[in-house]
């Protein structure tokens, strides 16, 4: 009997608690967001922009998934969004994009890719799907470029001894492999006579090699030298030891990281002359690291870079999808902002983190919301992603 009472009271409490959640009069459009990372600085900056700016500026509600790392997780999350009557889904999760698209198309809700792009074959397959909005974000070529530029920046300063932190390379994550390959290829290109990575010089071959071993070999690349490499996210004593060892390698000048450089290596280079470069985002903590000289080079996706894909999705939900001139889904490339000194970083950060007037503010985005926005205008808008171009747009 006691049990019965307990259970009944539990049930009552639950119901009361639920009744307290106010039913909104003017129900907002629900948009589901699939995330592969719930805690990274970049992911959090994205989320803050959507939840604290976009959701207020437009009558939408974002429902976030849990951190996803499997295809069945993605599928479950999309199912949950469908249950919640979401009208569209914006995806930051890439385990099985084709499956996501198929599932959304079958359920009749719009689907957009906010980071990365589909492969060429995938795009061919899905470009004419009605509910596939498209993708706006860095392509793998852009990822390659980010790594390349990072390495080139230091080589051009005359540095010759490097370390690489490969992040998810051992897990064969495309994005990180392309960035790392970019770094190696910059070394090959600028390493002078006979520079090669494990005997190959062609970017395709370098990428293939990294996919094969899930690791990067140290050694000379022409006149340059890759002195140390660490990959993975083990977070155990041995792994931290390897990172410290890399930072302490005799003669090493710069450590290039494919991501989360400050979090995993910041403390080890702190106080030394080793330069640290990373692909990350423009956060307060990163700014401090930049000020104190721990980090030297940040290529980052600015938090508001996901504004346009929201506009495209919203338009589709409103029945005015933006399709390319052949009626296909969007596939637009978007690049990174790169900060190489504290002042520049501060400037980026100020604009990027503002919840009143962010880079892609409502004023700018609204230009592309009305019906009949042309694909060319929209594409041109996306192409002007650099800091200065956006600043110009704001004026």
């Amino acid at each position: 009997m006691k049990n019965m009472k307990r259970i009944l009271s539990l049930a009552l409490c639950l119901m009361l608690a639920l009744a307290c959640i106010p039913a909104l009069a003017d129900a907002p459009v629900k948009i589901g967001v699939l995330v592969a990372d719930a805690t990274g600085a970049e992911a959090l900056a994205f989320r803050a922009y959507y939840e604290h700016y976009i959701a207020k500026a437009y009558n939408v509600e974002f429902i976030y998934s849990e951190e996803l790392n499997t295809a069945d997780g993605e599928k479950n999350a999309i199912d949950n969004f469908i249950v919640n009557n979401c009208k569209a889904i914006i995806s930051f999760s890439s385990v099985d994009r084709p499956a996501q698209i198929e599932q959304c198309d079958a359920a009749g809700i719009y689907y957009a890719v906010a980071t990365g792009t589909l492969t060429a074959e995938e795009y061919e397959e899905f470009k004419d799907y009605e509910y596939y909005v498209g993708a706006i974000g860095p392509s793998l070529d852009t990822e390659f470029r980010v790594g390349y530029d990072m390495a080139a920046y230091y080589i051009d300063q005359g540095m010759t001894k490097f370390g690489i932190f490969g992040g998810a390379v051992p897990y064969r994550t495309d994005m990180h492999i392309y960035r790392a390959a970019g770094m190696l290829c910059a070394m090959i290109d600028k390493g002078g006579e006979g520079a090669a990575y494990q005997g190959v010089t062609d970017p395709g071959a370098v990428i293939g090699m990294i996919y094969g071993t899930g690791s990067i070999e140290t050694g000379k690349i022409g006149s340059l030298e890759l002195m140390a490499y660490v990959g993975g996210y083990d977070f155990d004593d041995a792994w931290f030891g390897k990172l410290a060892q890399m930072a302490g390698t005799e003669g090493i000048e710069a450590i290039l990281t494919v991501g989360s450089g400050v979090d995993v290596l910041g403390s080890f280079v702190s106080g030394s002359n080793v330069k640290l470069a990373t692909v990350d985002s423009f956060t307060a903590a990163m700014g401090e690291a930049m000020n104190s000289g721990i980090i030297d080079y940040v290529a980052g996706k600015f938090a508001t870079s996901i504004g346009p894909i929201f506009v495209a999705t919203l338009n589709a939900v409103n029945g005015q999808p933006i399709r390319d001139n052949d009626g296909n889904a969007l596939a637009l490339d978007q690049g990174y902002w790169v900060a190489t000194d504290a002042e520049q970083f501060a400037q980026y950060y100020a604009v990027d983190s503002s919840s009143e007037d962010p880079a892609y503010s409502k004023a700018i985005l609204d230009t592309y919301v009305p019906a009949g926005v042309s694909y060319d205008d929209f594409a041109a808008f996306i192409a002007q992603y650099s800091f200065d171009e956006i600043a110009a747009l704001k004026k």
Partner: protein
Amino acid sequence: MKKPSLFRNLLLSLLIPCAVLLVLEIIALAKGVRLFVNADSWKLFFRAVANVTLTTFALSINLDSGRFDFSLGSVSMLSATIAGTLSQQWQLGPWLTLAAAVCIAAGLGLIHGGVYVLTRIPPIIVSLGMALFYEGCAFAFTGGKGVSLVTRTDIIGFSQIGNYILVTAAAVALIVLLFDYTRFGANYRALVSGQKIAVETGIREVGNALGCYAVSGALMGVVGFIGMANTGSQQMALNFGSIGIMFTAFLPMFIGGWIGRYINRRIGIMLGAVSMALISLAYARFDTASSVQSIVSALLLVLFLIYLNNEFAILSRFRRKQEVKS
């Protein structure tokens, strides 16, 4: 009954760490690498000793009493998160931050223990619930951002060999004193193997259990702080992402149990941790791939357990062989 000599006991206590060192040095020699090459290696070694010793204490305090604890990792994460945030807000120095982490972690342990003694749910289940709860707390507390102290040179500066030795020595000394030379410890040991009798005699089990959770928490607070000071950041974890640390404590706990036959068990655990730290150092020095690491570590655990559980049979076979020879 003859009392075994102190010398023999010491020798046997050092057997495992020395054997591990010897084997690793041989491998190192074969590979042409040196195990201890510079300050970084020593730092890694002593940090690992500190981490593993404290974690193993934290695990074994409750496990010896049959209380499984999946929440260790989450306690270390949440305490470091809160202490780190406070440190940022009030510019606390490393020792104050450490103290804050320890106090907070002890509090978290106490809450965990409180839920356990109030609800009387089996401890393993409570610990699962608390692990989830604390992970959620840490996430909610920082909005998922975690803590970044990378620019705090004072905090990062804590990562010194001297500090690691100090922390480890202090922890070992305190734990030995607390569990072997106080009333709390005497009651604890009585409860471990004679719960019913001890309670009937009038020992307050609830208070003792709460104390154990608090001490175990406090130790994890230190571990959390060491980790945060080492990397300058505290990452978040959800959905049991924090429980992994518990598994690193099993092997040193078993090794500690074995060494404990010859010397104080808690010092045995520290020697077990020394062995593990040597292995961690070797992984780093030999640049072992993480999948190979996992497999080797797992094999070591299983092999040692096979030895422990079949010691009698193995030893008697060994002796018989010797008899045949002679």
